[in-house]
């Protein structure tokens, strides 16, 4: 702690109320925006989750925790919740595992690197719905390129219904989610790699460390922050991912590929079960809040460390 820090602390201690007032004109608009777009909808969400809603959409008064009770009575909630956890963790894990070597690759200098980096970012820059629909066409039963290619190669007699057959569809969804998550993750890790000072690596080389040793002993530990941030942002993105599932399978057949996000939507707008759906909305929101809090903790910890 140096002298300036001490002065700032003293000032803060002496006039805390005043300094908040002084800051208000600067942070006021941001606070107002947050109140309007985050806090108010959240309060409305909680309020409506304790309201009786008819299938016509009329709000028929406060009903306490009745919507939550009905939600927990739903026989499919358990499997959907377990699937959601499987979905989030497998997508994030695969994404990170694939992004690590990819980031290493595009960190090397080779001719055409710019083009490769550019090509890698396209799936991320494109709209997720668009990417999903393209995958839907690729994997289509009779006219999709994937089945046609397999048939031409003689690897398949009868076309496989990748998206509609519950034996495969969940894995196809996971693949598409990994595909759209890789670019962002790779670039976060790339940024981490580029922030590693060259002299440390050179020092290790002088000491006779091989490439694998350098990676394990120096680079990977220094990537910790980048990995943490990439993981947590991916957790949020993948958990919230609606368009991939909805565009490719609509959560079907039955609820076989639903996550709690698509399940809530399906309950509200296909089965007109508004009340329990709003209750699930609150639970989804709480889950996201928990991850965001962890994220804030982690970023604060890494900042303090630096």
């Amino acid at each position, binding site marked *: 702690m140096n002298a300036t820090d001490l002065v700032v602390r003293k000032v803060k201690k002496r006039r805390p109320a005043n300094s908040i007032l002084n800051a208000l004109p600067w942070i006021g608009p941001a606070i107002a925006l947050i109140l309007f777009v985050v806090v108010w909808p959240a309060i409305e969400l909680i309020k409506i989750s304790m309201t009786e809603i008819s299938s*016509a*959409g009329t709000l028929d008064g406060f009903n306490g925790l009745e919507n939550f009770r009905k939600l927990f009575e739903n026989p499919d909630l358990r499997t959907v919740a377990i699937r959601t956890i499987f979905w989030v963790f497998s997508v994030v894990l695969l994404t990170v595992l694939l992004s690590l070597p990819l980031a290493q690759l595009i960190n090397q200098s080779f001719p055409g690197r710019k083009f490769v980096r550019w090509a890698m970012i396209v799936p991320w820059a494109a709209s997720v719905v668009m990417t999903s629909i393209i995958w839907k066409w690729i994997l289509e039963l009779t006219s999709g390129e994937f089945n046609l290619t397999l048939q031409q190669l003689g690897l398949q007699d009868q*076309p*496989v*219904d990748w998206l509609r057959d519950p034996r495969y569809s969940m894995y196809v969804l996971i693949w598409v989610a990994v595909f759209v998550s890789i670019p962002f993750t790779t670039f976060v890790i790339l940024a981490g790699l580029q922030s590693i000072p060259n002299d440390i690596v050179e020092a290790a080389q002088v000491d006779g460390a091989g490439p694998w040793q350098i990676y394990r002993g120096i680079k990977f530990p220094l990537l910790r922050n980048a990995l943490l941030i990439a993981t947590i942002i991916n957790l949020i993105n993948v958990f919230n991912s609606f368009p991939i599932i909805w565009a490719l*399978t609509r959560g*079907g057949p039955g609820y076989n590929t639903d996550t709690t996000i698509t399940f809530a939507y399906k309950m509200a707008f296909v089965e*007109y079960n508004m009340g329990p759906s709003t209750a699930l909305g609150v639970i989804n929101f709480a889950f996201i809040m928990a991850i965001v809090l962890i994220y804030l903790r982690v970023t604060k910890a890494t900042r303090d460390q630096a």
Partner: protein
Amino acid sequence: MKKIGLRRLSAIAAVSLSATVLAVIPAHAAGVTIKIITPNYTDAMPAYYEDLNARFMAANPDIKVEHTNLSWDDILVKGRTLVATDSTPDIMNLNTFSDYAAADLLYKATDIFDAATLADFVPAFINNSKYNGTAYAVPDLASARMFFYNKKLLYTSGVNKVPSTWAQVKKAAKKIKAKYPSVYPIALPLGSEEAQAEFAIWTGGNNGRYFDNASQKWVIDSKANVKTMKYLTSLVKAGLTQPSPASTNRTDAFKLFSQGKVAMINASVFFPSTLKDYKSKVDYGIAPFPHSKTGKSITLGVQDYFMAFKKPGNEAAVKAWMNFLFSPSNYAGFLKAAGGFIPATKSASSSVDSSLLPFIEQLPNAIFYPGDLAAWPKVAGALQTQLGTGVIGNPKAALAKIQKVAVAAGTK
């Protein structure tokens, strides 16, 4: 009912365009504004309504119409959120009405139309528009379904007589499968788009229903329905249907038929025009829908509704618009734009296209959804999402699960 989503994208583009056009018209100084929301049966609907509303507003300078055309996917979602968010429209065209009637949001049909106009609606259709014995909506059009078959696939496989019973369907399917291994003999689209319709028409031919009118009870897990589900499962297990019937939507099945990859299919009255849109070269025939040994052939009648929402001061305006729409020449234009459906009025029925006649002949054998129950939209939703799991899992358990949802939704 949903006409297939083939032209959805262009329809959405057209919608946003017409929405912009409407938005730039300055507000009328005095009088009432009514909001109307309708689905696009076809791409021709927005243009039809634009012309209709222009003529209506010219004749009724005090009334301003704000018209929104939506795709079926969008209107099914939006119809539910409008009421909840206090932006209830004045008039809506939808595939269900009963829960709005139960929530006391709608005008009675007698508030909107005089006796002579009401008497012109086809009695069966207006009866389906009643909630607790009172009509709260009017039918705008209807459809019936029949058994479509690919003539070439059937005849060249040695099937000389079009199957009329379940046993014959299975036998024919096996012959087709033997002759054409890459063809799916029967399309069974039990995906969420129209599972409730697909199952209703099969089980209807086995005396199975969703709701028993005599006892006023849900009978989704009845013996007849379980038997139907088991029969359909046997077709799936024998490889006589397209793969993954539980997640194949009607639109997917229609495409397979249009490409000559499916030999037999349940399809609606507008299917011929869909095949034309797909530029299909399939030479098809139409027959009454096959039935079980104990049942008889039926068709599934499905209708949509126009309904007017009670709001202070809008009664005269909605009355004027609805009567304008249902005046004979405007209604003829509506039917033309909607493309290939069965008219809902007697007067329009007298001059239909001859291609509709086989379907109209089936109407006396029509069964309908229990669309007059307030619980129907909920039950239909559960049927749509879950029926398909019956043919890939446990037939009886799937039906029992939906029955539970229906019982909880009530019988009002």
